[in-house]
């Protein structure tokens, strides 16, 4: 048994790969080729079946708001902002922020669509409310 990591293939460290795709303008997530489920957050093995046969594929980028909150913050510190859990059409959920409507007007069940933004601490996926 070899305990070393194979650095030669396309599948590098999962977290870095996720960010690399975002920086290239693509919202990709891992799929398990054994049980066919989508995985988030990025991992080295499938939490549904244990397989390590994972591949990066484009996400639909569409989903619905599963829950939402407004983090209250003084205007001089940037004001209130939204934090939501989005459930992608593929079924996985992630924490994100819904943009395009005021934070307090984000509703559970609202359809949303992914957008990639880049901030000081790295790239991230935001979701825009679909009219």
């Amino acid at each position, binding site marked *: 048994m070899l305990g070393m990591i194979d650095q030669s293939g396309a599948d590098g460290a999962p*977290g870095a790969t996720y960010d690399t795709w975002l920086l290239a303008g693509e919202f990709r997530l891992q799929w398990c080729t054994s049980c066919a489920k989508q995985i988030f957050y990025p991992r080295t093995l499938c939490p549904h079946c244990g397989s390590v046969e994972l591949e990066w594929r484009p996400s639909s980028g569409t989903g619905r708001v599963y829950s939402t909150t407004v*983090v*209250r913050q003084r205007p001089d510190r940037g004001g209130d902002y939204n*934090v939501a859990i989005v459930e992608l059409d593929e079924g996985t959920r992630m924490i994100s922020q819904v943009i395009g409507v005021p934070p*307090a007007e984000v509703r559970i069940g609202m359809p949303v669509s992914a957008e990639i933004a880049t*901030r000081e601490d790295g790239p991230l996926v935001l979701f825009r409310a679909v009219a």
Partner: protein
Amino acid sequence: MTVGTIRGSTAVIGTGLAGLGDASGFTHLDLLGLAVHRAVTDAGLALSQIDGLFTANMVNILPTLAVGEYLGLSPKVAVGTNTGGNSFVDHVLWASLALNAGLCDYALICYGSTQRSRPGPPPDAFPYEVRYKPREPISSYALACARHMHDFGTTREQLAAVAVSARQWAQLNPDAFARAPLTVDEVLASRMISDPLSLLDCCLVTDGAGAVILTRADRAPDHHAKPIHLLGCATAQTHRQISQMPDLTVTAAAQSGPRAFEMAGLRPSDVDVLQLYDAFTINVLLFLEDLGFCRKGEAGALVESGAIAPGGRLPVNTNGGGLSCVHPGMYGIFTIIEAVEQLRGTAGERQVPGARTALAHGNGGLLSVQTTAIFGTPETL
């Protein structure tokens, strides 16, 4: 030994509290030391007789070593499992197993914190979520709360009723930190932190320490006139981060509760008094439902009826809870101590008359892990 033999096999013979409220100048281990001294005295033991140590905190990465050294103990068994605020309720199970196996004779579960006067570092940030700046832990509980309101029509007034009930109990407890009268309107008018949770939906931030000593049932009567027996205990976990919780309105208490009840041979209707980990008002609703005290979605109406307040048919958080008595970051040990107080019949003005069975429920992480423990007086064996 099988699961069926745990029921009644161990008992709490000593408890201690220290530093509740503001203990400026003291360290978390100073407060822990005082609580342990009181528990050891309560149990009629010398500190040197403690040979099992179960402890966790948010400061020491090596908690059993830091605490053991401070107390001058070199225990035969030391367990420092940290799953957050439920840890100490979970420790009760492992302490009981170690006692039953003969690995130790006197198990000490203990905790100290200066979360108010000298706050520690925040827990590890999760890379895929910290980017969105949730205000943790409040935002995670707010997300669960918003979904409960959406699915079941739970109202902010019903959540406020949890805070008001806790305050009414606290007014009967001289040890409680917040004892001023409180109304539903005042909770609703308090500053919003992370919708729909406002300031008074959130627990206190206090200092405080607690200690609990268990021994095998055959030894217990030598140490305390009224040993309080462990009847059942179980833990279940579902996730670490709130986005990975399978259903935001169903916690792992729906697993830990039935397992603890099965071990105890009891049903929810057999429980006389409940201590539910109330870091936020929504917790109490979720745990009442998941532990089987009402159907899913009906806890809001239950608490609004006054059932959990003093004089109600289902006394909950009789010390005032984390909302009004004490919350130093990890509240679980205080659920055990208040359960024991009620079963000993020494709870003073807040005593639930004739309480023979008590449930202590601990929550850890972001609704991530749940431990249910059921205790009983000697006549319940």
